[in-house]
C-alpha cells in the first residue's frame, strides 16, 4: 500500500497542475466546435429527456411488481445517468496514459495524473448533472433527509471510478488489448447491473453476478434514495467499501510493479 500512498502524496503536490489538466481536457474534447463545452452537458441531458418522453409520456410503460417504482422512464433515468458517467470516465481513463504517451516521455510528470484528470473531467460534466437529478427527484419524496446520502454515495462512486480508471490505464500501458476489452465490457456491463431491470427481476441464483459490477451498489443506492426516498441499505455501503479496498490493493501492487517502466511502455 505504501507505493500507492507515495504516488498520492506526489499527486497532491501537483494538484494545481491536475486542475489545469482537467480544464484543458474538458475544453480539448470540444475545442473547435461552436457550442463548445455545452455539448458535454447536452448529450446526457437529451438522452435522459428521451427516456422520460418515450417511456413515461408516449408509451406510459409500467414495471412489474417488486420494482422500486412503477414508471419505466423514471426508473431508467436513475440508473443510466450514473452509468453513462462511469462509462465515460472509465472508457476514456483506460486509454488516457497511452494518449498522453508523448507528453509523459518528454515531461517529468507522474503518469497517474492522466487517468485522474480524465475522471475529474468526467466528474466536472456528470457531477452537476447527477446533483441536478437528485434535485429533480427530491420533490417526489418531499425532500426526505435521506437524500443527503447522495453526496457520500456519489463521492464514493468517484473514488471507485478513479481507482479503476488508474488501474486499467496501467494495464492498458502493458497490454494495448485492455482498451478494446474495456470497451466491450462497458458495452455489456449495463446488463450486469440494475440499470435496465430491477434487481428483483434477476433470478436469485444469478444475482451475485451483479455485484461483480462496481456500479451495482451505487445504482442500488441511488434507486433507493431517488425512487423511494429511503436511506441506502448497509449492503450498498459495504459493497462500495469492499470494492474500494480491493481496487486499492491491486492498484498498489501494479503501481509498485510498473513504476520503473511505465513510461517506457507508452
Amino acid at each position: 500500500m505504501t507505493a500507492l500512498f507515495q504516488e498520492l502524496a506526489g499527486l497532491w503536490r501537483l494538484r494545481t497542475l491536475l486542475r489545469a489538466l482537467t480544464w484543458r481536457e474538458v475544453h480539448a474534447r470540444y475545442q473547435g466546435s461552436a457550442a463548445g463545452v455545452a455539448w458535454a452537458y447536452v448529450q446526457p441531458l437529451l438522452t435522459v429527456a428521451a427516456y422520460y418522453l418515450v417511456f413515461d409520456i408516449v408509451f406510459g410503460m409500467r414495471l412489474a411488481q417488486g420494482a422500486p417504482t412503477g414508471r419505466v422512464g423514471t426508473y431508467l433515468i436513475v440508473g443510466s445517468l450514473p452509468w453513462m458517467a462511469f462509462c465515460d470516465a472509465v472508457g476514456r481513463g483506460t486509454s488516457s496514459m497511452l494518449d498522453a504517451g508523448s507528453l509523459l516521455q518528454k515531461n517529468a510528470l507522474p503518469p497517474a495524473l492522466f487517468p485522474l484528470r480524465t475522471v475529474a473531467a468526467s466528474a466536472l460534466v456528470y457531477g452537476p448533472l447527477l446533483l441536478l437529478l437528485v434535485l429533480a427527484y427530491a420533490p417526489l419524496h418531499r425532500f426526505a433527509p435521506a437524500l443527503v446520502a447522495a453526496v457520500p454515495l456519489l463521492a464514493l462512486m468517484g473514488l471507485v471510478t478513479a481507482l479503476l480508471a488508474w488501474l486499467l490505464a496501467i494495464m492498458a500501458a502493458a497490454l494495448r488489448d485492455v482498451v478494446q476489452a474495456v470497451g466491450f465490457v462497458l458495452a455489456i456491463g449495463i446488463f450486469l447491473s440494475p440499470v435496465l431491470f430491477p434487481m428483483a427481476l434477476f433470478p436469485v441464483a444469478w444475482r451475485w453476478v451483479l455485484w461483480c459490477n462496481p456500479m451495482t451498489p451505487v445504482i442500488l443506492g441511488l434507486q433507493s434514495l431517488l425512487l423511494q426516498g429511503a436511506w441506502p441499505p448497509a449492503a450498498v455501503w459495504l459493497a462500495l467499501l469492499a470494492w474500494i479496498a480491493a481496487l486499492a490493493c491491486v492498484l498498489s501492487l501494479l503501481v509498485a510493479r510498473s513504476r520503473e517502466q511505465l513510461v517506457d511502455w507508452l
Partner: protein
Amino acid sequence: MSAHAAGALVPAGDPVVLRVAELGKEYRLYASPRERFRALFTRRALHRSHWALNGVSFELRRGQCLGVIGDNGAGKSTLLKLLTGTIQPSTGSVWHAGRVTAILELGAGFHPEFSGRDNLYFGGSLIGIGHEEMARLEPGIAEFSELGEALQRPVKTYSSGMTVRLAFALVTAVQPDVLIIDEALAVGDQHFQKKCVERIMAFRENGCTILFCSHSFYHVRRLCDSTLWLRDGELAMQGATEQVVSAYEVYARSRDVSAEALEQPIEVPAAHAGAFTPRLGARIVAMSIDETDGADPPLLLGRNLRVRVTARLEGSDEVPQVLVMLEQFQGHGIATDSTRADGARPQRLPNGDWQVVLTYPDLPLHSGEYVLSAYLFDAAGVVVYDEWYQHARFRYVNPQLTPGLVRLPHYWGER
C-alpha cells in the same frame, strides 16, 4: 567562458547542484506484450534485461559545464531522461538543487487547436510555472519568441519554426539551476539560433550549470569544462574535456579503421543533420586558393598555400569567426585553424563583406590531392552560420620525393 585547462573543475567551494550516484537503467524486454502484462501480476514472467545505463556517478557544481559524448546507443539519451526525471532509474539516484530545465524535444505537449497563449500557460503549468508567474513572464516570452499577434492564433497555424521558438522561449523563461541541452543549439532560423545561444551563454555567465550532450566535438571543446564519455551504458572516461574528447576520437578512429578503409576526416563542427541552418543573412560567399592553374583539380603553383574566404553578414556589424579545415582528398584530416583560436580578425572589405586570408607558408605536405573546407561562425564561435564542406580541391607537387603525409620540422644530431 574559457575552457579550464587542467582538472576542469570549478573551484571546489561552489555548491553541488547535481549529484548522480550509481545511476542505472534497466529496460526489461519481454517476448510479447502478453508477457509484460503477466509481469504486472506475477513474478514468474520471463524477460531479458538490457542495461542502457549502469553505475554512472558524477557531481556537478554551480557554474560547471559538462559535455556528454559517446556513440549512438551508448546511453546518452537515457542519462538525460533520467536526469530530467521523465523516466525512473532502476538503480541509484539523482539529486538536484533548484530548477532543472531540459531543452530536449521542444513543443511536446502543445495542443494544435489552442492558441499559442493558451499553450504557453498550459506548458508553463507542466514545468512548474503557475498562472500568476506566467502572467508576469508572458511579455518577455512574447518578445523573445517574436510571435507578436500570432500568439493569439491556434498553434496548428504555426510553422514548425514558430512552434519551436515559442517552446524555447517558454522553457528558458526562468533561469534554471541546471540546464540540460541535447543537441539543441539548432533552434529555428539562424537569427533565432543565435538568440538561443546567447541566452544559454547568459545563463552560464549567471552561474547556471549546464549539461550538454552533443556529437559536435567542436562545440563540446568550445563550451565544456569537463566531459563524460559513455560507452555501452557505462562511464568510459570522465575528466578535462580535451583529454576525454581526444581519447574518444582515438577510440572512434581505431574502431572505424577495421570497419571501413582509411577514410578518416577530421570531425566536422556541427555538420551533422540539423545542427546548422543556412540563412541568407550570414553566409560564405567565396572561397579561393591563390596561385593555382586552371586544371581540375587545380595545381598549386607556389610553395605557399594561401586560402581566401569571404563572408557576408547582412544587416549586422558582428565580426564573424572563420575556421578552415585541410584534409587529404578522400583521406585523413590534416589541420584545422580558426580565427578564434588564433585571435585573428577578419578584414572588412569596402563593400561590407568580411575576408580572411590564411597562409600555410612553405606548405609542408607531400605530393597529393587535398581539399579545403570553410566554416563561418558567429563572434563567439558557437553558432555555425554557414559551411562549405570540402569545397576547394587542389593538387600539390612537393619537389622532395619522400614518402609520408607531412614534412615535420626536424633536425639530425643533438643540438
